[in-house]
Every structure is written in C-alpha cells, then in structure tokens.
C-alpha cells in the first residue's frame, strides 16, 4: 500500500502556469468590469454635483443686493409742489430728481451732462419706487433729511459681487473708471453694503435684473398646480378604481389600458399642442391663464396618477375585500369603505410625485402663452400669469449678466419646492407603508 507509487496526475487544463495566467486574466477582466461600473456611477453622480454646484455658485449671491447709503433730502419743492400732501400727486413727482440730488450732494465735484448721467446710473430705478413708498407710508418725512439705503443698478451689483471683472479694459466693462472710483469712495466710507434681497421673494417679473422676484411665478405655479390637483386626482382615482375593480376583460378596456400606458410616454410638448388647438383655439379659453395650464398639466399627469393608483389598489390583499363582502357589504361599499382607504397612502404618494413632475414642466406651458411678461402677482386662476419653470426659462434667455444669478436663485427656489414635495411623498410612504 505504502510503497505504491502515485501515478503522475494527468496534465490538467486547470493547473499549471498557463492556467494560472488565464485565471489572472479573468480576474483582471473582473476587476476592470467592476471599475467600469464604478466609473459609470461616479460619472452620473459627478454630473449631478457639477449641476448643483453651477446653480449654487451662480445663485447664492442673488439673495443679497448691493445698496448705497445716502442722505436723502425729501424736498417738498420737488415732491409736493402744491403742498396738498395728496398720495396721487406723490406718484407723479419727479423721484429721479430726488435720488439724483442725494447723489450729487455726495459727489459735488461731478459736473457736466455725461458724468452726471453716469453718476445717476449707479442707482437702480427701483430706488425711486423705494423713496415713493417711504413718503406714501409716512408723509411726515417731507422736508426732512434721512439716511436711506438705496438699491444700486445691476451693473454696479455685478461688480460688487465679483461676477463682472474690474480689471478688464474700460471699453469692455459696463461700469467705467469714474463710476468705479465713486464706488470705491462710497465703500471706503462704509456707504456700500449688500443687504438681504426681500424683493426677490415678494415681487414678480421685471426688465431689470435687480428688481425681479419669484413670487409671481410661485403664485402662478400654485394656482396652476391647484387646478391640476383638483382635476387629475379625483379623475385619476376614479379611473383607476374602474379599471382595477370593475372593468371586464374585453377589447374596449384593453384599449383604455394600452392608451393610458402610451399617454404616459407622449412627449410633453404634444400636450402643449393639444392645449393650444383645443382649449385656446376651439373653446376660446384665455391665454396665459393658470386654469388652462392646470387643465393641460392635469391631462399630462392623469396617466401617471392612474398607473400609481392602480398599483396601490392592487397591493391591498384580497382578504380585506372578501371579509367586507362576507359580512354583507356591496362591492362598492367594500371598495369605498375598505380598499380605497387602505390604498390611499400609495395613491397620494403617486399623486404627489406626478404633481412634482408637473411643477417642473415647462414645454407645454410655452405653447399656451404662459411665457407672458407679467409684472403683477396673479390674482386668480383667470388672470395672466407665468409659472416658476417658465420664469426660469425667460430669465435664462435674457442676455444681461445680472439675470444669470437670478435664474440660478429661481432654480434653487424651484428645487426647494420639488424637494419638499418629494420629502412629503417619502414621509407618507414611510409612515403608512404596510406589509401584509
């Protein structure tokens, strides 16, 4: 036994240096493959962070706006020559002259038409509105002198924030050397400051980047989405109940099913064409109105809501239905009293996600005229308005440098709303999630 010689193992394909080399190669390819996967995922995530960083770095400064502190003389001779203290007369007054006088007082050495106009250009048109508002609120200011923070023009603001370069030749700057020297003097005296931009959260659109605000877009979006919710939610749930619980299996319900799946994948701009041809042309509904935008977005989100609601209804176990039917409930009672309440969290999650999608939608709303330049906060579902993403689109289209930061800030506002909606959806899902 012991002296039996072991026969030499036959040369195997799976041992020996050649096999080891092959194995090495296979392992190398394994590692390579894993690295490709990692690289792909990193690329996607890097793109996300680059995008967010672009928005943040461009938009963070928009929440503060450069102001100049000036001693303003509320001269009754300019503001209220009749001495009637009539608010309507205040509106007619030459506020530009009041602001100009304050600037000239600070820089008495500036003479001549052109330099004076350049001095004027430091301040925004919004400064005049600010002064008017002060005096309208408190007519007792007339005749007094006050230190007032006045809004600067966007060009000055861009220089102060470092978005426009100071060290390029004067010809390619929008703020010339004289204006820069005035700004430096103001800064040295502590009369130049970036103050919180409340206007951005209270105003609507404007031609001047320093005067714009997102509130008009936010209200428009709110009205539009409210309309969408009002239409799409009940209809979507009703359709889902019918298709899931009642629909007989026949060609017609098959057609509806295929239809809904297809509608979910139709490009959004096609819904815009539908809205334009049917609601504006055929029914003669008003252009730019949130009501039309809401209807179009409702048609767009309907298939998404139906699909989500059907999934939620399907996930309620049959035992619930059978128990209800067993103690004598009618089919409709079983659905409305037992199945629907249990499916509601899922339905609401789906609805919120569909609405978040609708909130970011731009293309169909361009078709139905929501690109209007609206300087008032929309008053109701029939008044002309724009929505947040369209507002972003319009500002992004504007070549002025000051709009880049405002666009980014508006995007941040939109993303915050989207984040809130998605967080609500996740919270609902976590809170009411049930394992049967």
């Amino acid at each position: 036994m012991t002296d039996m010689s072991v026969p030499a193992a036959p040369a195997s394909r799976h041992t020996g240096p050649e096999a080891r080399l092959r194995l090495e190669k296979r392992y190398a390819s394994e590692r390579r493959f894993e690295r490709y996967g990692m690289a792909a995922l990193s690329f996607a995530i890097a793109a996300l962070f680059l995008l967010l960083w672009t928005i943040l770095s461009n938009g963070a400064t928009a929440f503060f706006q450069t102001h100049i502190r000036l001693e303003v003389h509320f001269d009754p001779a300019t503001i209220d020559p009749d001495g009637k203290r009539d608010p309507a007369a205040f509106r007619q007054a030459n506020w530009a002259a009041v602001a100009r006088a304050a600037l000239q007082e600070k820089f008495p050495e500036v003479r001549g038409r052109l330099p004076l106009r350049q001095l004027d250009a430091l301040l925004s048109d919004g400064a005049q509105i600010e002064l008017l508002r002060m005096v309208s609120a408190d007519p007792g200011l007339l005749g007094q002198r006050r230190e007032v923070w006045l809004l600067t023009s966007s060009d000055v603001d861009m220089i102060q924030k470092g978005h426009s370069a100071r060290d390029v030749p004067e010809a390619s700057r929008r703020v010339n050397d004289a204006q820069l020297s005035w700004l430096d003097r103001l800064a040295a005296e502590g009369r130049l400051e970036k103050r919180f931009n409340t206007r951005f959260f209270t105003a609507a659109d404007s031609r001047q980047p320093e005067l714009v605000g997102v509130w008009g877009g936010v209200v428009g979006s709110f009205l539009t989405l409210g309309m969408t919710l009002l239409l799409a939610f009940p209809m979507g749930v009703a359709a889902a109940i019918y298709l899931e619980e009642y629909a007989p299996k026949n060609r017609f319900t098959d057609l509806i099913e295929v239809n809904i799946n297809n509608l979910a994948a139709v490009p959004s701009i096609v819904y815009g064409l539908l809205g334009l041809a049917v609601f504006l042309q055929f029914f003669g509904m008003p252009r730019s109105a949130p009501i039309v935008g809401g209807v179009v977005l409702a048609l767009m989100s309907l298939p998404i809501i139906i699909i989500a609601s059907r999934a939620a209804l399907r996930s309620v176990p049959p035992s619930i239905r059978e128990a209800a039917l067993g103690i004598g409930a009618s089919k409709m009672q079983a659905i409305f009293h037992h199945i629907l309440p249990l499916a509601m969290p899922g339905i609401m999650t789906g609805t919120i996600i569909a609405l978040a999608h609708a909130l970011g939608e731009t293309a169909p709303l361009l078709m139905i005229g929501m690109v209007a330049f609206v300087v008032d906060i929309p008053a109701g579902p029939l008044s002309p308005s724009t929505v947040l993403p369209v507002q972003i689109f319009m500002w992004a289209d504007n070549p002025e440098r000051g709009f880049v930061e405002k666009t980014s800030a508006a995007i941040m506002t939109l993303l915050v709303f989207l984040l809130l909606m998605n967080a609500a959806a996740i919270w609902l899902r976590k809170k009411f999630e049930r394992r049967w």
Partner: protein
Amino acid sequence: MNTIFLLCVLLVLSAVGYRMGKASAVGRQNGGTVRLHSLPSYYGYYVALWCGLPALLLVVLWTASSDWIVKSLVVSALPDEIRALPADKLSLVVTDIRNIAAGNIASAAATPAVQAAVDTYLNLAGMARSAMWLVGLAAAMFGLLLARSHVAPSMRARNRVEGIIGAVLIVCSVIAVLTTVGIVLSLVFEAARFFVAIPAADFLFGLTWSPQTAIRADQVGSSGAFGAVPLFTGTLLIATISMLVAVPVGLMSAVYMADYAPARVRSIAKPLLEILAGIPTVVYGFFGALTVAPFVREAGALAGLEVASQSGLAAGLVMGIMIIPFVSSLSDDVINAVPQSMRDASYGLGATRSETIKKVVLPAALPGIAASVILAFSRALGETMIVVMAAGLAANLTANPLNAVTTVTVHIAALLVGDQEFDSPKTLSAFALGLVLFAVTLALNILAMRIVRKYREQYE
C-alpha cells in the same frame, strides 16, 4: 369668479338635498315599523346626486358655449358692411369689441357701430350670466324635488346610487381615451390644413427649412421652405449622442448597483440618481447653456477644432445626463427580475461575477433592456427644454456633432411661442412637426411594450 360662486351654491344645495333625502327616508318609516331597503344615507346621496349632477353638467355646458353664442349674436347684429369684411378683419373687430367691453385698450377708436355692438355684447353677456344662474338653480331645485318625491322605504336607493357612481367611474376612465383622440384630432386637423398649402412630400423630404412667410404677398421671399429633413437629422443626431452617453453609463451603473456595490454605497447612490431624475428639464437646459456648451467649445478650441457655441454635442451630452437615471432605473428592474437561480448556476460552474453578468444576466435581461433603451430614445426625441436652451435654431443638414443643429421640438416651440395667426403655413407647420413627433414616439412606445409583453413571462 361668478361660475365658481355658482358651483359653491350648487354644492350647498346638494348638501341640503342629502339632509332632506335622509330625513324623508327616516320619516317615512312611520315610527320604525317599515324596514328601509337601504341605509338612510343612501337616500340622502340619491337626492344629492340628482340635485347636483344635472345642474353641474348644465352649468359646464353653458359656460363652454355661452361665449360662442354671445359672439355669434353680436356679429349677426353688426351692420352689413362690417359683416362683409374678410374673416381675419372681422375677428379683429370682435376682439376690439371684447376689449372695449372689458375696459381694456382696443386697437382702434370705437366707431358708433362698434360702440353699439359693445352695448349689445355687454347686454348679452349679462343676460348669459343671469341665465346660467337661472338654469343652474332651476335644474338643481327640479332634481332635488323630483328625487325627493321618489324617496320611499321600498326604493332601492343603494343600487341606484351605485349605478350613478359606476357611470361616473366609467366616464373618468374614458377621459384617457378622449385625451388621445383630442391629441390625434388636433394634430391631424391642423396638419391637414398645412399640407393643403405645402405638399406632404416637400415637407417630409425637403432639405431646407426656413419657415418665413411674408405678411404681404408682394414681399421678397414670401414662399418659405418647409423641408423638415434638417430637423429630423438634427433630432436624430442629438438623440443618438444622448444615447451614447446614457446607455453605457446608465446600464453600467445599474449593473454595478445590483451586483457589486456595498449596501452603503447603494443606499447613497440610489437616492442621488433619483434626484438626478427629478430635476426639471429647464434646469438641465440652463446648465447646458451656462456650463456644458462653453466647456465643449473651449475643449474643442484646445484640440484645434471649430465648435459652434450651441453645438449638437453639448445638447446631446446634457440630454444624456438627464436620461441616465431613466435608463438605470429601468434596467435595474429588469436585471433584478432575472432569477437568482440562474446566477447561482453560473457561479457554481466557476464563473466570475463579471462573466455571470456578461454571459448570463445581460442576455437574459436583453429584451427588457432593449425596451428601456427604446423608451429612453423616444424620450430623447421628445425632449424640448434642453434643446431649446442649449441647441439653438440653426437648421443645418449635417452629421457633424460640433456644428449647430436643431430639433423638431425646438421648432415647434419657436413657431408657437407668442402670438400666432392660425391661417399661415408657418404656424401650422408646427402641428405637422408635432404629428411626426407623436407618430414616431408612439411607434417606439408600442414597439417597447410589445417587446416587454412578448418576453416578460419567460422567468416567472
């Protein structure tokens, strides 16, 4: 506002109807000796539905049609010489009448005839408003009294209420079909009007696109060219670039997350991809125009290449990034649907993970992946905001991604933003483009659904 107030009144009336129906059902029990067929609340719902629904339908119909009726009445009351005007002039007069009536600024000073029409208009509009109230309230009251007279202990109230609700459910699910019908009809009708002016063959196979039609007939270049081929090739070019980015990245991310990534990485990466999916396209467009397009141009300049400032490459890249999460989440579902036993069998034979994925999982998941790629492609074709903001309007017939190209969706948006006239081929061409877009994406979606349906059952 008026209508909303009326709707609120109808709602209140229905609530009253509910109370009345319930009370009268209980009241007719005669002290509890007669048994009701249904629960008392069903008698209430019955009366409420009869009170609210017909009135609601009438009010909606009235609101939709009254404007049109008032308009035709006003037009028929206009003097003959105004009515004899061509259709576009006449519609201008009608717009003026409306503007004056609403207290807005009109395009022309009011002539006596127009002033008279304004008075008629205001008169009729006021009448229409009161008539709406009258009709709505009358219908509600009539329905309420009629339904209440039906209420009797033996009435099968539950069955009737359920019948009505069932009908409402069916109507709601038919809306989805009506939407499709509406899309098809609006596209086909307007496109047909376009094809009357421009032959379909010129549109589908023409090589130049410059949709400028003159306002006056004697203007130079009044004809315009509606050859959409440059738009089609531009769309295909940008969509293809985006797929070249999105498919490998999305697919490999999905594979990595399904089979390689540790749980911690997955729990971070998945929500991040979902954020990427949730970012509105207008934000991607801004990102493309502000960051990616200048980057591509400067990178090209470093390499000695001439790159247009709104190149197809930049737009395609951004669109690719947008579609990555779409591809990855769809392929993730498909990859996870491949049964574990198949992987185990492959591992048991000594295959490495990458070999298992390449030789077993991906071939098994191929139909689903193909379907998701087709869906992603269809989405890239229909994407609008990114290309509007990052790709521009130049309709070049080129396959070079460094040139400026444009897409179908860009031109639909460009043609229809702002005021339009609905009788010029320029405006109508947008609907022809929309029809092509709709038909192509529909075909792709159906193809994808077919593939999924055909291969879905294999592993269940």
